[in-house]
């Protein structure tokens, strides 16, 4: 069973077309992983779909504004009840 980090990493790699080794917990989505505002919107959609069976949640615009790093995504998902 892949870890939460690994599952998040796979979604980010698929969406942002970055190399898996670039996706570290500290990596900043915009500064390090070269995402722009449009990428972030589609990334939140992809995360909602990827974790729909783990917990019921939606990523609001306000939530999205507070997500800056890979670790922020992991913390958000844990807070929604997604198991680690």
């Amino acid at each position, binding site marked *: 069973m892949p870890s939460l980090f690994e599952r998040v990493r796979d979604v980010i790699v698929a969406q942002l*077309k970055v190399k898996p080794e670039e996706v570290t917990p500290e990596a900043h989505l915009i500064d390090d992983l070269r995402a722009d505002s*449009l990428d972030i*919107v*589609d990334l939140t959609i992809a995360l909602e779909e990827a974790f729909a069976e783990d917990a019921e949640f939606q990523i609001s615009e306000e939530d999205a504004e507070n997500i800056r790093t890979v670790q922020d995504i992991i913390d958000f998902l844990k807070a929604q009840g997604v198991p680690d």
Partner: protein
Amino acid sequence: MRRAVVTGIGAVTPVGLTGHETWQNLVAGVSGIRRIESFDPSDLPVQIAGEVRGFEPGRYMDTKAARRMSRFAQFAVAAAVQAAEDAGLVLSDAERHRAAAAIATGAGGVLETIKETDVLREKGPERISAFFIPMMAPNMAACQVAMRLGLRGPALASVAACASGLYSFIEAKQLIASGVADVVFAGGTEAAIHPLPIAALANMRALSRRNEEPERASRPFDRDRDGFVFSEGAVVLLVESEERARERGARVYAELAGGGLSCDAYHITAPLEDGSGAAEAMVTALRDAGLAADEVDYIAAHGTGTPLNDAAETAAIKSAFGEHAYRLSISAPKSMAGHLLGAAGALGALAAAMACYEDVVPPTINLEHPAPECDLDYTPQRARRRTVRAAAANGFGFGGQNACVIFRKYAP
């Protein structure tokens, strides 16, 4: 007046993944029509198309850029990069504001519209991709080509149905003649192979239903033609000012001599039966090119394989070229590649320009029994060697838009 010349070719079509491969297969009479593979066509009355097979966008752009483009824009970027490489073009930063893109399309990113409409219905508005609008918009092929190649002059995107691809060459010539640009990437692109447009065109009775014999389905000017074959792809030629091309010692395929446009102002789909609208575009193109009718040796016909088009186009050629219509060579690239819609005119332009360069006329394949109303020389079945002093490309679109562009053999 500043002259315009073609110095590079690029294409992604059902008959080749490069400009040169496409041209060679047109000359060799290779059909690109097959049973549809990108989806199961079993419940459609038309199950054949000219699909681009084996296209790898990653060869021409990075994967992140590719993800932000609909297929029609990916094709255009690939064809434009090929044209730049074929021409050995190097742009200095100072030249970029005099470098332009003119990439026409019929339907733009209609595949994205269809896809996101399904998302809207099945998953709701919050799941709509933030990339939908910038992927769907029809100007995006031109803008993505500009972004990829650093072209900071005009980015133009004509929409003229199946005549679209030729509008770009008229724009290119004007941009260069007027001194606005020195370099123009000109062409057309289309990627709309999906059950929705195919069902619609099938219901219009515009498409061939020869499902059992895909390679024989596209048969312009033939007695047994029963419609066109839906295709996809892009063709982009690099058009350069003659002065710039000469200074850098570029290889020149042909001169872009002139063009003409007209509108039938008659019917949403049917051409004027006497072809007078199309003839007007050809006569205007001859005048613009400064050529007499008998100086044109080849016409890359619109030649769709629909009963109405082929008869009207034949009448139009006779009207525009008089007795010389019986002496020039005509052929239909669509007999091999199918109908590339917004890119179709650009494929004709490639055929016309290369015919001038190589003195060879590609064939009209599947022309076994010419229809009685089609009595000109359509170069049946096999390519023909002949001196091509000048060559025209025709394109006519639903709505009655007509375009003709003329290339001539380059003489410094």
